[in-house]
């Protein structure tokens, strides 16, 4: 049966890109779910100055929350063996020097890999930049997880972003609830589709033109 991938499955698919030794910054939303599915040896970074923190504090454990440890989404997290603490000058040297992988949410991605993920309003008060611009420009690999279409059914993968950009030509891989798409110098390469979906159907929900991979397959987890 034709279904869209749920948010957990999207997180699981994005997490599959990571391997032992990778350091990754997870943004708000679906990316946070990746933490549950990463292989051993992957470490998490927050731009506020932690590398290698442990699991998040959940609602029923609030009493144990330590105010001093907060992840990239502003949630309480726990210290873990091997964790390092540093200031933002050090943190953004990590981010901007290509040592990290970034998994972020997105509003729109263009056919050239332009990313819009901080603002839908068009003025400074319509959104929040935080570390997103630094992460998009500086990361070794940028993975965007987002629903393939908006709530109104409009494509999020577009020829040209209509929302204010976070960064130009920065996205490497897009994981949606329908497809896995790689941004290549030649264009957007459709590599995987959700079970039951055809490449034509995905193209129908995508404004930018897709190149169909000769190895097109169902999403692999």
């Amino acid at each position, binding site marked *: 049966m034709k279904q869209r991938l749920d948010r957990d499955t999207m997180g699981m698919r994005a997490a599959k890109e990571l391997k032992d030794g990778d350091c990754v910054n997870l943004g708000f939303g679906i990316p946070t779910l990746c933490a549950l599915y990463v292989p051993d040896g992957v470490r998490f970074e927050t731009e506020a100055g932690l590398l290698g923190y442990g699991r998040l504090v959940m609602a029923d454990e609030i009493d144990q929350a330590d105010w001093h440890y907060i992840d990239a989404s502003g949630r309480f997290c726990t210290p873990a063996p091997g964790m390092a603490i540093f200031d933002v000058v050090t943190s953004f040297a990590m981010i901007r020097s290509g040592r990290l992988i970034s998994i972020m949410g997105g509003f729109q991605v263009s056919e050239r890999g332009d990313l819009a993920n901080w603002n839908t309003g068009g003025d400074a008060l*319509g959104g929040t*930049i935080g570390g997103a611009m630094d992460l998009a420009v500086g990361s070794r690999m940028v993975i965007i997880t987002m629903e393939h279409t908006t709530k109104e059914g409009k494509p999020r993968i577009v020829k040209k972003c209509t929302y204010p950009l976070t960064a130009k030509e920065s996205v490497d891989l897009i994981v949606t609830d329908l497809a896995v798409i790689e941004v290549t110098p030649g264009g957007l390469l459709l590599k995987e589709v959700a079970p039951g979906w055809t490449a034509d159907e995905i193209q129908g929900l995508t404004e930018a033109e897709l190149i169909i991979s000769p190895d097109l397959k169902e999403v692999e987890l």
Partner: protein
Amino acid sequence: MINKIFASFDEAVADIPDGAVIAVECWGYPATPHNLIAALKRKGTKDLTIITHCFIPQVFSEEHAALPAVLLPQMKKLISPIVGIMRLGAGGFVKEYVEKGMEVEIMGHGTLAARLYAGAAGLGGIYDPIGVGTILEEGKEKRVIKGKEYLFQEPLKPDYAFIAGHKVDKLGNLVYRGNYRSDQPVMAMAAKVTIVEVEQIVEVGDIDPEHVITPGIFVDRIVLIPPDGLGTPEKGRAVIDQLTQIESVRDLLFGKAD
């Protein structure tokens, strides 16, 4: 030895003039110098420029904590990478003040850090690859260096920095805890006058020199957070209780991780 210890937060901020530029760390409720912010609010200093990592609405009682947002009526300008939280209405809470003339300057968090470092180190500014091709280009000099585009960003040199520290010796050698460190060392270096509120004051020699994060030369004033001060662990619990009453905030901070 010069005495850097002030008896009260009010005395520590007493000389801050109208129009002052102040760097204040804030990462949600934590990593925030609540007591210094509250003292500046009591003083009523006007036309402030506030430089902060995170500017979000004060959704809990000021009896427990004070975020930079409590200074909104006293502000002329805000410089921050985070103005509001998208899921909680973005920067809507600031709109009323913008309509009355408050200026808002936004930028990436790493750009803020680099501009503060430039201010501290006496650099004339930075050429920054972040923001190229975005609305942040507006009004900025663009320069191509070795084939790559950069935007010129001016240094930030605050008049004051408000710092939330963990432990300090009487010379001002300072230790933070967890990611309270964050923007604070570079803010302390960039500001002309750095004021620290701290959980613990110890004798000179009690902090291992290998552990000092901000050397005392960057710390001008120290105030000990009293047991009934803001931002203490007890008041933190009260803040959590209030936050968990607000559904959207509860989901964001403590819900299932999505």
